[in-house]
């Protein structure tokens, strides 16, 4: 208490001095303490916590067929989701119902997709859908693409089934809205890989876990936007309904839902894109489809195959995104009934043909250009690496040697108690008692989880990646915030990048830099840059024009205006932007683990595949959460501090 008061009395410059002094003393002490109490843990070694978790896993396994919660709850849910997924797969991707092929072959699916795109959107997206679906066959990835589509559609179906009613309830009742908002925030900020392990524990490895993981990640947007759409309805429309004597149910079905529909469709779009991203990532827990192809290819560093599958994912994302976007901006306009009938009939004929005939069912082998694509990519990759004259290697090695290694060594080679002391002290002097307590709790959490050194490696990578993200994000964001032309050019690129599943980013990075720690970091940076840049740009644009004008009028150069006016005034949103970047970086940590980033990410992945490492994998996931929570809270505290100083 008295400490807190004393701290508050410290003037700000003094605080900065204290922080600098702590850091300086720490650095001076480091060489003396190097190598002591670093808590390393070998790849196959288990700590106490891991054995405990393994035991817990086994206990759950053992009770799966006896515990009533499983017998009457989870198992039915699993059965339902497994059956649903298998059903959709039987329709479009896998042989089923005693047939050698799925019910609908490539012609039928393509025809239906084209018809749906036309009905929901317009001719352009219909054409896009047609070409997109055919390209899956041309890439030789028809079955994989359909598996991904089947999983995505199943997850989206259940997400909408749950999400739209919840969204409506939240739109109608402020109490519901207030209750679910923090839950949704939590669902969206939690790194996705973390809940994969617990899910497989409850629902086993298989479609059910993949579907639920996907839903957790994908359901928040549709809930939020449905609620938003319902809340934003102009009161005049509602009043006119009430004044004509509409019952609450009539008001909902005839006024609220139709008026909120465009917003709900935007939500469906975002949910669909999130589901697609997550379904590819669910390859980590054996979900079939394009994600699995990318994953396997990356594990064997087969860039060509990974690129082909990655390209198919991009095409799928673009088709789904364009179609639902077109649907959300479509004006209600009647089409002639005969045209609609004709299109539906054509799609029906396509579907029928693909049900009966082999040529319309299985994509013709002669038109499989997959091998050529793969070889072409491999050749291009080799040529690029050759002719780039080792530039990529140079970049990688220099960055690793000068930036990553020193920082990582600093953290991994130091005694844990040294790091704990310095971190708590810095938090205490920099941000106050609560931050210090939080950091202390985080350190304790990491120690209990038994993965101290791995956590430090991941922390180093995360900090470096976040710093790079912040650097690029702030530069690009300031540029966008100041020039609407730059905004117009960059924003579409960022938007497009954000709709892509994270796996896709890895492919070109691996192609250029091989499988190293740096690759993981770079992929994370690329993944996190869009959100950071957009938030910075928003903050810069939010700075009052009068302040900028005044500074210009006072004779400041553009540089001075940025440094002395715009960035300081936008400090809170810049900090927020970096915080978001951090969350994104952390959620890429596991994916990075696949391509040589090692540490916690690798442990998580290993936990999925190796039985005796399950507990360790879960612990690694929890360690990522601990890192995430601590770093995120600290960023927030810094942001609110920045905001408070401005006020």
């Amino acid at each position, binding site marked *: 208490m008295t400490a807190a008061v004393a701290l508050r009395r410290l003037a700000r410059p003094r605080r900065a001095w204290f922080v600098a002094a702590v850091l300086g003393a720490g650095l001076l002490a480091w060489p003396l303490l190097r190598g002591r109490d670093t808590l390393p843990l070998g790849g196959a070694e288990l700590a106490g916590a891991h054995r405990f978790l393994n035991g817990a896993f086994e206990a759950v396994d053992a009770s799966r067929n006896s515990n009533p919660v499983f017998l009457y709850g989870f198992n039915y849910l699993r059965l339902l989701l497994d059956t649903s997924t298998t059903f959709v797969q039987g329709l479009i991707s896998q042989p089923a119902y005693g047939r050698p092929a799925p019910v609908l072959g490539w012609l039928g699916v393509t025809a239906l997709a084209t018809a749906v795109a036309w009905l929901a959107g317009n001719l352009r997206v219909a054409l896009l859908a047609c070409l997109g679906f055919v390209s899956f066959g041309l890439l030789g990835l028809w079955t994989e693409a359909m598996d991904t589509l089947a999983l995505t559609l199943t997850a989206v179906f259940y997400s909408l089934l749950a999400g739209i009613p919840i969204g409506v309830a939240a739109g109608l009742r402020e109490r519901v809205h207030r209750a679910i908002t923090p839950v949704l925030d939590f669902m969206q900020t939690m790194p996705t890989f973390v809940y994969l392990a617990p899910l497989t524990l409850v629902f086993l490895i298989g479609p059910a876990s993949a579907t639920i993981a996907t839903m957790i990640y994908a359901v928040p947007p549709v809930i939020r936007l449905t609620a938003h759409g319902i809340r934003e309805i*102009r009161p*005049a*429309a509602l*009043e*006119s*309904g*009430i*004044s*004509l*004597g*509409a*019952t609450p149910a*009539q008001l909902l079905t*005839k*006024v609220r839902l*139709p*008026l909120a*529909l465009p917003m709900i469709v935007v939500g469906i779009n975002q949910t669909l894109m999130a589901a697609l991203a997550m379904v590819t990532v669910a390859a980590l827990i054996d979900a079939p489809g394009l994600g699995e192809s990318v994953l396997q290819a990356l594990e064997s560093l087969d860039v060509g195959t990974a690129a082909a599958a990655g390209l198919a994912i991009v095409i799928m994302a673009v088709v789904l995104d364009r179609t639902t976007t077109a649907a959300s901006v479509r*004006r*209600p306009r*009647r089409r002639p009934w005969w045209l609609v009938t004709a299109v539906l009939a054509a799609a029906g004929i396509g579907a029928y043909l693909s049900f009966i005939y082999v040529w319309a069912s299985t994509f013709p082998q002669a038109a499989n250009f997959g091998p050529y694509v793969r070889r072409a990519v491999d050749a291009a990759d080799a040529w690029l690496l050759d002719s780039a004259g080792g530039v990529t290697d140079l970049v990688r090695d220099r960055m690793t040697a000068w930036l990553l290694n020193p920082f990582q060594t600093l953290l991994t080679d130091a005694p844990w108690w040294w790091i704990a002391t310095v971190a708590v002290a810095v938090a205490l002097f920099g941000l106050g008692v609560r931050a210090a307590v939080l950091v202390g709790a985080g350190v304790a959490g990491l120690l209990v989880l038994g993965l101290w050194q791995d956590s430090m490696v991941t922390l180093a990578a995360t900090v470096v990646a976040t710093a790079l993200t912040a650097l690029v994000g702030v530069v690009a964001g300031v540029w966008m915030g100041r020039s609407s032309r730059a905004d117009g050019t960059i924003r579409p690129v960022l938007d497009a990048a954000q709709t892509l599943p994270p796996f896709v980013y890895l492919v070109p990075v691996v192609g250029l830099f091989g499988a190293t720690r740096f690759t993981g970091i770079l992929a994370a940076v690329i993944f996190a840059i869009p959100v950071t840049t957009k938030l910075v740009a928003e903050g810069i644009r939010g700075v009052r024009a009068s302040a900028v004008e005044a500074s210009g009028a006072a004779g400041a150069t553009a540089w001075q205006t940025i440094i002395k006016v715009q960035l300081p005034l936008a400090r809170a949103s810049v900090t927020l932007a970096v915080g978001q970047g951090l969350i994104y970086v952390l959620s890429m940590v596991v994916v990075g683990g696949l391509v040589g980033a090692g540490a916690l990410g690798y442990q998580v992945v290993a936990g999925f595949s190796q039985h005796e490492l399950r507990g360790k994998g879960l612990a690694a996931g929890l360690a990522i959460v601990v890192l995430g929570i601590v770093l995120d809270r600290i960023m927030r505290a810094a942001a609110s501090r920045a905001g408070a100083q401005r006020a």
Partner: protein
Amino acid sequence: MLDVDGLWKVFGPRAAAQVGTELSSAELKRRTGCVAAVRDVSFTVAPGEVFVVMGLSGSGKSTLVRCLTRLIEPTAGTVRLDGEDLGTASPARLRELRRHRMAMVFQQFGLLPHRSVLDNVAFGLEIRGTARAERHDHARQVIELVGLSGFEESLPEQLSGGMQQRVGLARALAVDPEVMLFDEPFSALDPLIRREMQNEVIRLHRVVGKTMVFITHDLNEALRLGDRILLMRDGAAVQLGTPDEVVGAPADDHVRDFVADVPREQVLTLRWIMRPAGPSDALDGPSLPPETVIRDAVHTVLSADRPVRVESDGSLLGVVTAAEVLETIA
């Protein structure tokens, strides 16, 4: 037909406790955080009457008219429709009344953008459960009545503001209500269109003869349309009277200022300017009834060389000469 008695609407915390307050708006807001949007308003609307409520922005007109159908729940007071107390009506009964007996036209139109004009107009019938063919038939007739034939399949956004409000009007008319409530229906329209729409309401009133409660902040609109006018200020009724009463005998200085710019000869009747006949007045001039608007009497009065007699049922009420007329016009 429509009886309003002691109506109060207070927004804010512990609203019911503020009913009957004597505090001014500013004082009330400061002390209790409440806004008394309607204060103790009472009036009766006769069948077939056009009853205009007028006042400046924020005077509580919208709140008042919404209390009449309980779109806003009154804090105190009663509203009766043909003797039936709306305040105690069950939700089902209230819906019944709204579906069949009262309909409202809104300033912001309140059209449903995803529905065609036809389906917007048929909306009230749809809610009642009228079959599709029947409600479309009926809606077409009403659309013709408001002069929108040919636009049945258009979407609201494809129409001009005036046309959109005709749709709003048609939607209210389609349910064939006994009372029509208008909340500043023409404020969002530009002056020419507004005039045209006022004529439309006057015409419709002649055709269908509905009872109308019409809210406006436009004095000229009030004077043109209203059989009687209720003037509101800060939620309270300031004056209730016919247009010529409001202009000829303003209840207070505020109303006087308000009506100062009105062309009096267009509103006042001879009743307001006649004087008792004196012994020197020759009583063999032309004769006019007291309800004659001055503008219509100018020619007769100025061209006669003796005072014009103002007579009702053969009894002499007073006389008017050029002097009185000129004083009004000047």
